[in-house]
């Protein structure tokens, strides 16, 4: 009771402080109507859902310091009151009985409780051992302030650029695709496209299960009597296919050929948008010697010739999609009156030609002029709640600095050093190791040749389950006594199992946070309940380690004036002791960090509003620009004059970060290339991996929700019934799925959640007991470094009892 009251008062003070600081008339995000009464004493407040990149807003009902109910937030533009089964049960993720509540240090092979102070000392020791060999592995589930703190700690503090997010494994190819095409990351359109389009094309994407609220946002238009055409292109039938008007099954990797085939037909039919292309588009190809995202100019005639081979007949042969369906696609894109929205996510991103595939989807839209008006845009989706906000915008990547800056660029380093008030030259100009390279180095004994990463600190993700080819990337490091793994998490996971130091973390509404969703929307929430036991915020953990190092006299944790790198003023004078957990919520650390980070966002026109604006709203889409009357206006459509204030007046469309500096977007020629591994005699089948609606990411949270686990308790091998008959396998029979790298055993399911074609199996990756990533491939896209989890060769056999 007392705790509850105290924490409530603290929260009230926090809300009041922020509200007071904001412009007149501001109210907090607490819905006054809900706050009054709903059952005895339930207090309601807003928060974005913890799970996917859709970024639905929920209203969280709290009673006696516990979450007791969830409601879809009616005032949220993203979801308009609706959620999916994960969102409705998100409150339950806090209450699995095995929450981590104490720091644990491995002593003689056993994880043993230690004090927080000892844990912080251990980390500080590891940093001091060799700062350049200390790495941080985070995720798109970091809140923006957390990711920003980690970024500053690494690049501005210990001067190691080895920080990467798991987003590398999930949307890095989307980033490289955006940069190669527009010179700047993230979609130009927004979810309003789903309300306004006539046609939806899903490119290897299953939103019915992975972005359910977005799926229903357009499919429910049908129930309201609107006509909307869904074209589902996929390598297997999914729940999305079940609603599709046209289901186009294609062979793995052949999406490249299909996109080129559409371009070929637009040329042949002379139905491309000449006016748009003439004004707003350049043609581009990879440099022959040193290929880069910038590429080199390609003459239009040469580009046309390059597309010559992609006749419908040739493309049909590669892809398995019928010639008629290819014409149908080209005719749609050739029709300017139709508004077409393309959706894609992991199918195009987790691809050894992911950058190329992303460029081609943009290319089809640009070349046909289907871009820049509501309902008519290429829209890339993200899987994590803040993949955009944190990984991409804060830039917690080995090569990046906040706000779209690069460590390799001198002026970018200088600006960052100024914002951070650290001495010139603090930031290392050499990019750090990306995810796969980071874990490979950690799994290599230190020698002249490399292996210099000695410690990785993992926060808000579970690489023990999600890294590809674990035998190569993790097992050797686990066995090497010189290597050290730190893991901050909320539950025991496949990563805490092998970690040397485990830190218990607060999760979701046990802490304040800010997420950025797939449509450039930045969303804020306040802490609403206390974390269990000694669990503490990830952001506090970073600041506390930084302060440990500062106390030890570690130079990097001092700014130019000798102050603590994370120094925050106390409004009543002196320094706010943000490293002291007992004082941590005396002030809003998130707001401090967010306001500091906000300075970085102008360079790429990703302007964020002050923190207090986000308190009042259910998120705002950047660029958020201040108006003459002092209000803040969000932007729904970038690069389009009717909505984006940064577009040159009179130009209708202006790609103002163009890599060619002329306001034009790039349409690339990227050929179809065969995948690195294809089924052969020895390993005759394709394996595709992915998610199911019940579980999110590696299932550590959703697996502890009885309603979700009850519906989908275990991984399975989805198999075509012809293949099942050949193998003599029936539903529920155990099979072995085996690749050149590893094997798993799991039950077969014939036409279960989805239906793969003959020769393909599908395995979801949420189940910790079935580590399918011992089987997958670590080959990755040359630009984004993103591995391909969607296709590799396996053999499947019945497991004899």
């Amino acid at each position, binding site marked *: 009771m007392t705790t509850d009251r105290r924490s409530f008062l603290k929260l009230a003070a926090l809300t009041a402080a922020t509200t007071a600081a904001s412009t007149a008339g501001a109210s907090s995000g607490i819905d006054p109507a809900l706050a009054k009464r709903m059952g005895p004493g339930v207090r309601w407040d807003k928060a974005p859902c913890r799970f996917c990149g859709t970024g639905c807003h929920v209203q969280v009902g709290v009673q006696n310091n516990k979450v007791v109910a969830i409601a879809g937030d009616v005032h949220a533009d993203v979801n308009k009151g609706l959620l999916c*089964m994960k969102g409705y049960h998100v409150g339950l993720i806090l*209450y699995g*009985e095995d929450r981590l509540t104490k720091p644990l240090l491995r002593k003689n092979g056993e994880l043993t409780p230690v004090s927080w102070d000892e844990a912080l000392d251990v980390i500080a020791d590891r940093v001091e051992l060799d700062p350049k060999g200390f790495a941080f592995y985070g995720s798109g589930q970091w809140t923006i302030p957390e990711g920003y703190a980690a970024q500053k700690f690494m690049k501005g503090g210990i001067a190691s650029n080895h920080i990467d997010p798991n987003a590398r494994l999930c949307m890095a190819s989307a980033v490289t695709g955006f940069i190669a095409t527009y010179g700047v990351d993230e979609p130009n359109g927004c979810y309003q496209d789903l309300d306004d389009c006539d046609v939806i094309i899903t490119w290897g994407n299953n939103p*019915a299960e992975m972005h359910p609220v977005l*799926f229903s946002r357009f499919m429910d238009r049908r*129930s309201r009597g609107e006509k909307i055409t869904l074209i589902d292109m996929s390598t297997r039938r999914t729940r999305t296919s079940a609603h599709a008007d046209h289901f186009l099954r294609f062979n793995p990797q052949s999406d490249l050929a299909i996109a080129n085939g559409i371009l070929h037909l637009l040329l042949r039919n002379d139905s491309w948008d000449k006016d748009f292309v003439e004004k707003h588009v350049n043609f581009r190809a990879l440099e022959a010697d040193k290929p880069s995202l910038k590429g080199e100019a390609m003459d239009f005639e040469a580009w046309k010739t390059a597309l010559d081979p992609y006749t419908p007949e040739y493309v049909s042969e590669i892809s398995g999609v019928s010639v008629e369906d290819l014409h149908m696609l080209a005719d749609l894109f050739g029709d300017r009156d139709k508004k077409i929205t393309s959706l894609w996510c992991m199918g195009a991103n987790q691809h050894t030609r992911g950058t190329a595939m992303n460029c081609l989807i943009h290319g089809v839209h640009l070349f046909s002029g289907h871009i820049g008006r509501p309902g008519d845009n290429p829209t890339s989706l993200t899987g994590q709640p803040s993949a955009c906000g944190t990984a991409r915008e804060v830039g917690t990547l080995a090569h990046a600095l906040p706000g779209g800056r690069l460590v390799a660029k001198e002026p970018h380093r200088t600006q960052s050093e100024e914002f951070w008030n650290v001495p010139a030259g603090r930031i290392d100009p050499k990019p750090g190791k990306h995810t796969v390279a980071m874990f490979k180095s950690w799994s290599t004994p230190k020698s002249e040749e490399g292996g210099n990463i000695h410690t990785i600190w993992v926060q808000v993700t579970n690489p023990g389950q999600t890294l590809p080819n674990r035998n190569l990337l993790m097992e050797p490091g686990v066995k090497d006594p010189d290597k050290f793994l730190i893991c901050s998490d909320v539950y025991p996971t496949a990563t805490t199992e092998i970690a040397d130091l485990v830190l218990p973390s607060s999760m979701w509404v046990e802490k304040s946070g800010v997420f950025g969703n797939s449509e450039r929307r930045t969303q804020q929430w306040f802490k609403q309940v206390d974390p269990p036991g000694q669990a503490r915020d990830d952001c506090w953990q970073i600041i506390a380690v930084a302060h440990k190092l500062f106390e030890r006299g570690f130079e990097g944790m001092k700014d130019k004036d000798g102050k603590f790198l994370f120094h925050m003023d106390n409004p009543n004078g002196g320094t706010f002791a943000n490293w002291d957990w007992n004082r941590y919520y005396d002030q809003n650390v998130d707001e401090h960090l967010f306001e500091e980070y906000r300075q970085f966002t102008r360079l790429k026109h990703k302007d964020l509003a002050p923190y207090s604006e986000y308190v009042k709203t259910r998120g705002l889409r950047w660029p958020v620009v201040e108006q003459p009357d002092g209000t803040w206006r969000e932007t729904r459509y970038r690069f389009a004059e009717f909505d984006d204030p940064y577009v040159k007046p009179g130009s209708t469309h202006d790609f103002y970060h163009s890599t060619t500096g002329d306001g034009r977007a790039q349409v690339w020629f990227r050929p179809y290339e065969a995948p690195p591994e294809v089924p052969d005699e020895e390993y005759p089948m394709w394996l595709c991996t992915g998610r199911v609606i019940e579980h999110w990411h590696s299932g550590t949270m959703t697996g502890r929700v009885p309603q979700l686990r009850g519906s989908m308790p275990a991984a399975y091998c989805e198999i075509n019934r012809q293949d099942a008959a050949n193998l003599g396998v029936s539903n529920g029979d155990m099979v072995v799925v085996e690749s050149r790298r590893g094997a798993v055993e799991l039950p077969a399911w014939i036409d279960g959640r989805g*239906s793969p074609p003959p020769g393909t199996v599908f395995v979801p990756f949420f189940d910790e007991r079935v580590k399918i990533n011992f089987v997958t491939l670590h080959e990755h896209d040359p630009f984004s470094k993103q591995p391909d989890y969607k296709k590799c060769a396996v053999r499947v056999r019945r497991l004899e009892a």
Partner: protein
Amino acid sequence: MSSPPVNPLTVLLAVVFGVSLIGFLRGTDTNDYDFETPLRDLAEGDHGVVRPAVPYWEMRNSPRGDGPVLAADLAALEGAVPSRTDAVDLTGTSKREALADRAEHRAYFGAPPVIPHPVRQQTEAECKACHENGVRISGHQAPPYPHEAYVSCTQCHAMAEPALPWEETTPADPRAVDNSFLGVASPTEGERWTGVAPPVIPHMTFMRERCVSCHGPNGRDAMKSTHPDRQSCEQCHAADASIEQRPGGR
């Protein structure tokens, strides 16, 4: 009587026919593999029995129906949906029982209920056959949904039981731990200004626009309206702004 009541069986048969038609058309599209699995493939494996959901157009020929709820004689469907003009009997289940029964399938008051029977994994068209108006089969009531017709039912409603036999075939799940979440309980009644005034609505009405789904003739006895023939509920029963997500409040 201004308009004749629609015979529920007609509605049901229309839906069944519609669904079969979709199934038939799907079978004839250009894809190179078949996606419907015949029942015999699904019946029994070595490691346990799968309880497949039976497509409705196959129910008449199905050897054992579709689990306990639907293992019923289709003839019993006749007259299954009571009319709004039937006499109302409130003497069955008590309100306490009715609310407890509702709570069983929900994590908290306001959560979408889980589905207590197997459903097919890929299409939702069939849900409506029983849940649009709510048929009663062999004493089991399929609750009609209270919200507008959304397309993707399994977006919100999880299955109470998995579709695959799994416990016997896989090692124990380290995540299968107890969960100490305690959800908010359902309100028991709406406030009345006097003993005879119509009660206000004690719950949010968002996504509960079809009052008859719980309070109509198909509702649980103690929750039924005594006057289902009256169509305009909010004429007399006020929604409570303080518990709706609306500005204002009492």
